[in-house]
């Protein structure tokens, strides 16, 4: 975009020239007045593997499938004088269960 060198008002492009709207001053367009926005690359990811286990594991038996390894995490869900709740998630079938004691 250019402004008129004479009166300072906005100039509009016309046939390769910038023309002042107010006072008809004409300036040749020399520079490149383009701006480009590149496309946002997107690809559909295909995941072949099972979601990898990120949890620490322990040897416990899954009550659903009987597999003997499960990922675990703990959270203090009840009052402070009681033990933390232990969560287990079976590595095989994904079943989640809790232990309170």
């Amino acid at each position, binding site marked *: *975009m250019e402004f008129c060198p004479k009166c300072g008002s*906005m100039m509009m*492009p*016309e046939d390769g020239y910038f023309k002042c709207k107010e006072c008809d001053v004409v300036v040749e367009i020399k520079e490149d007045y*383009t*701006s480009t926005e590149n*496309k946002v690359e997107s690809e*559909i990811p*295909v995941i072949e593997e099972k979601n990898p286990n990120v949890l620490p594991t322990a040897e416990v038996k899954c009550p659903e499938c009987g597999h003997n390894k499960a990922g675990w995490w703990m959270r203090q869900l009840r009052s402070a004088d009681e033990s933390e709740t232990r969560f287990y998630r079976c590595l095989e079938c994904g079943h989640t*269960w809790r232990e309170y004691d």
Partner: protein
Amino acid sequence: MKIKQKIKKYEGKIPPKVLKDIQTKTKEENLTEKELDKLLEKTKEEFDRKQVEYGDPVGTVAAQSIGEPGTQMSISYNEKVILRKDDEIKIQEIGKFTDKKLKEDSRKKGNWEVTDISNEEIEVPSLTEKEKIEWKPVEECSRHPAPNKLIEVKTKSGRNIKATKSHSFLIRKNNDIKPVSGSELKEGDRIPSMRKLKQNCITKIKTNNYAKPKRTKSKLPEKIKLDKEFGWLIGTYLAVGKCKNHVISFPSQQQDVEKKIKTISNRFNFTLKNTLQDNSQEKDLKINSKQLSDLLTNTCNTEPSNKKIPEFAYSARDKFVSALLKGIFDTKGAIDNEKHEINFESRSIKLINGISLLLNRLNIFSMKKTQNQQNKLTIPQKYANRFKEKIGFNKEYKTKEIYELKEPSTPDQIDKIDKVPGTAKLIKEISEQIDIDIPKEIDNIPETGNIERTTLQNLLEDINQEKIKGKTEEKIKELEKAVESEVIWDEIIEIEEKDPSHDYVYDFSVKDTENFTTYQGIVTHNTMRTFHYAGVAEIDVTLGLPRLIEIVDARKTPSSPMMTVKLEEGYAEDRDKAREVGWEIEETLIEDISNIETDYSKMRVKLELDMEMVKQRNLTKEDVADQIESELGNEVKFEDDSLIIRPESSSYRKLLRLVENLKEVRVSGIEGIKRVIIRKESGEYTIYTEGSAFTEALKVDGVDASRTRTNDLHEIYDALGIEAARQAIIDEAKDTLEEQGLEVDVRHVMLVSDIMTNHGKIKQIGRHGVSGEKESVLARASFEVTVNHLLDAGKRGEKDELKGVPENVIVGQPVDLGTGVVDLTMSPNIKKED
């Protein structure tokens, strides 16, 4: 003082704590200014390198993706690769090369050791989507401990490669190139092998790099031009020459050989001798030059079983390559008119492999075979013309022979290796559209079959004479791509499990194409790509209590709507088809498929469409233009593959608004489906979507409507009715609870769901639903907005029967339920019966 200034310069480039450390270190160690400069620079470099870019695997996700066996895709230590740096080609074992680079600098990613070598500008030949072989830069090389077993793949043309099972190979399917993992490969599959190698050429070599001058006499010039004569000399040496101390000897069987060697020795001022060979009548021609002898020994070896093509030959000009090959084939090549081929035999497998690669330079593909320590290289007849043209013979009788080399007459003698997968179907599709003469022998090939390339070429020449447009034209373009492909689709004849020979296996990461070619010519793919979407490969769903509240509140739209789209048979097992369905579902906007150029001086917007992406979505540029016209009403003009759109009147504001509107124009997919990922679960590809549009998704071809689901309950109600919605509420609530490790008897959940749906519509539990519609005033008032309920009830003069739980609790009397339902009276005066 200067130290402080210097350090100050790096503020913002290096973390302040590190800068402080550097400052103390400088004082402690009394570093000089130069040393400080170096330290600062190195620190910054290191810091920059450790910074993570978008898409890089980081933290746990990185650890997972790298630790997973699925990503351990690498090739064996001894596998040689073709490397190019500054126009010079080097052949090196990938293991040796990588080990050296890792020693210089490496970082650990799980059990991978990786080093970034992108700034070294080393390139490898790589296969592009257009089936051309191009040089592409290597970005990283890496190694990790070898697994228990590797697989060795052998092909019909005598090439082989050792890789881990999950290393992926490229195959040709539906006229496109696709990676598959090694464990999925089977005998009879075809993998690409390089046919043509392009090279920017070196013209001279520095003699000193290969052999130091020992004597002033018979010294070589400092630089030797890689010209015809020198090429021929090396070729002849490789075929029949010998080196001993300062003498290079050739059996001079023919006058022309003698003459040529004489001209060369004259050029370098060597002394030549003609001597009788021991115990025979044959003459030996001997060149006397220690330096040349050293040069040949160092670059080509001397033992006949160990000879090899000198490395500089791979990057030399075509002229030199041709002459070298001419030297080889002239002295030891043979023409077999019965088998329709040109042969060369040698005891050195290295030499055979090298010749094969050199022939690639001239666009000739050869086959290799090893038997009884004798290695044989074979060039099929179809390359005879190119052989004549590019290489040829000096010997007259051989020239005559090659001119007489006939095309194979019976079809079974035609080259069986160079067939292009998927072409039989293509030809059939073309023949349905236009009239072409299909030779008998390929008419019988089933649709899944492959057709030999020369036949394809002949067909293509027939077709080109007519003028065709539209869909058929695209098919013909695909045929052209198949014919002009710079790889041979080599058939696998054997896949064997092998023990790894080294502790590590190796891999390259190649820019853009992610594949590279081994010395033997086999193109392998190094990454499945799909696993590098660290953190992107998961769709975020609301879980736990917030989700449960959402369900019982029967929200109009869930906070994270998503669909689980199951596919029908025929789609579910096919990765590519699954992906096609994915494209059809995922919303594609203009900003996804084109660069948007705003030109202020011409008052227009130019959309540079990525035609590949447009095609991928089964669209044409006309479709895109139509979509824009119907949605925005602006006229669209074409300029090659770009679209030109102008605002309705000349105004900057309108131009800018146009750009913003254009970006959001949807060209394909379903509205509201922002992202799609595909996951393989129990052998079946399932599509997960971010955003939900259930009714629309069910209409897409390939979607299994009976198993597809969404977490938007209202969409299920709209599409499938209230019973389905009831079941969906049960399933969603139960899944949410189970995910939290909570076991709630399903009957509780069913009760809630029943109450929510028993009016024929989904009703929330809450003020505007179940709780708000209770009969009892007190019960309603006890739930939410107490005053309003009491006031309204008062205005209407409502009665409360005190039958439910809350109202009875409020008034403080037993509830008419369970034990509370019995009125117990005791009369103390009843007589005891005996």
